[in-house]
């Protein structure tokens, strides 16, 4: 039994009077794809936000590869290998697709003043290497897109922006990838295609664990081996999709059935 890559105990986060996370316990096995589902407002995105350090936790603990990371800021979370996409698209639209991808690779780029202003040959080489790497990654998701890397992100449709966001998160070779409703705004086919591409990367790269927040249940069913169901900030069920979808507590949470 391998140790979990990520584990949370009693994670709690309040916003004024609202308890967004209420003593959440969660574990993710390395190399797996975990689905995180639950009705609107159940705390899924808040979990991502607290995990990545955007909001501090009011109580509880998070461990990543055994080490405590509860108090790390977003910058620290990125550096230990956790990358994410956002529920609402957060690309820098005036910048080129390539620029946006390079944001994701921040920690592998040289940012010294001397290097960037004076050692232009070396900079050029680093830019070229990264350009090729970015092209290869983007090619997996959409070959034509890989040819448009020098266009502004504002000029591509939403689905391509989502792809770029996923690539931005993948390009730094994270250990844990957090996907927040990647399917929003996409058709069923586009979503499946996106997930297939992500899984392809997971297999090629190896060592990538994924937590997926999703509302489209068919995607969860197809892509995840295990899911965790949240409601009012706590875990109410856990297991394979087939199991949890039959769980009466889960059904009540979603559909309000008796």
């Amino acid at each position, binding site marked *: 039994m391998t140790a979990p890559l990520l584990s949370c105990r009693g994670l709690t986060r309040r916003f004024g009077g609202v308890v967004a996370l209420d003593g959440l316990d969660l574990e993710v096995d390395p190399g797996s794809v975990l689905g995180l589902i639950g009705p609107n407002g159940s705390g899924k*995105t808040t979990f991502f*936000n607290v995990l990545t350090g*955007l909001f501090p936790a009011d109580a509880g603990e998070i461990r990543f590869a055994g080490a405590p990371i509860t108090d790390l800021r977003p910058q620290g979370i990125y550096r230990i290998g956790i990358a994410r996409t*956002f*529920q*609402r698209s957060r690309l820098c639209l005036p910048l080129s697709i390539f620029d946006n991808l390079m944001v994701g690779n921040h920690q592998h780029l040289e940012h010294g003043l001397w290097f960037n202003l004076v050692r232009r040959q070396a900079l050029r080489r680093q830019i070229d290497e990264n350009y090729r790497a970015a092209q290869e990654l983007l090619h997996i998701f959409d070959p034509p897109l890989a040819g448009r890397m020098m266009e502004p992100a504002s000029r591509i449709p939403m689905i391509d922006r989502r792809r770029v966001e996923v690539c931005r998160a993948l390009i730094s070779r994270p250990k844990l990838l957090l996907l927040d409703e990647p399917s929003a705004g996409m058709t069923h086919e586009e979503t499946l295609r996106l997930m297939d591409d992500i899984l392809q990367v997971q297999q090629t790269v190896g060592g990538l664990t994924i937590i997926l927040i999703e509302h489209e249940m068919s995607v969860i069913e197809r892509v995840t081996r295990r899911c965790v169901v949240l409601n009012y900030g706590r875990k109410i069920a856990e297991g394979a999709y087939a199991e949890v979808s039959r769980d009466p507590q889960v059904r009540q949470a979603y559909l309000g059935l008796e």
Partner: protein
Amino acid sequence: MSLSVIAQYVMNGAMLGMMYALVAVGFTLFFGVLDIIQFSHGDVVAAGAFSGLAAWTLLTAAGMTSPGLLLIAVIATAAIVTALLGAVVARFIVLPVKTAPQLNVLLVTLMGGTVLRECIRLFYPGGSQPKLFPALLPTSGWNIGAFHLRFDNVILLVAGGLLIAGTHLLIGRTRLGLAIRAVAQDEETARTMGIDFRRVVLVTFALGSVLAAFAGVMDGLYYNEVFFGMGLLLGVIGFAAAILGGLGNMYGAIVGGFLFAALQTVGAVALPFASAYKDVFAFGVVILLMAIRPTGLIGESASERV
């Protein structure tokens, strides 16, 4: 230091604090309703003072002499002019750029304020020089020991306090206030509830600007003079006070205003050799406080959705 000197300092501080609080409440209203920094507010204060002065000049030239009537005319003119200015700024400058980055609104209102300020300087007769503002309140007072408590200062303080209290009641107890609070909380929901977003914004801006009018007239009555740039420092201080207390928080704005005045007074007492340094001291403390408690002493209300 004798008691009367302390009392004088306290009085000065209270007057300044009241003015700052009035301006700060305006900033807070604008931020609350539209999540924006409206930097023409200080210059609207100046416009209020100058329009009041213009009213007085015209009416006295026409022969009116009663200080009570003149005072009413001055305040009324200032209020009407600033309310209109506030609404115009909201309608033509702020609302159109609402969707642009917050920085754009700050820039466009700052430049708009500059236009207003320069118009006063260039087009008001003798506008580039400080102008004498009439003393329309009774200048007598009571003597408490060695301290002379001026009647007009008391009136100004009381009036300012009533105005703020009135605003507080308006926001808290009336339907309009409810609409304003609804819009401040969540524009979309307020709209779907049938609230006329535009109207609420215009009214809020007019309301905040009327407070500015009073601050301007108060400034003129207290110092007996106005000048075209008076709104600049007042605006910056009002903004700082609003931030100190926590943007969007009305109590915070009032506390911030009086706190800043207190800091200035402490600075003036501690550094008697140059009065200019009192502002440096006060802002220095403000910077420190902002660094330590960025959401303000009482707490900011806005937050961003991730």
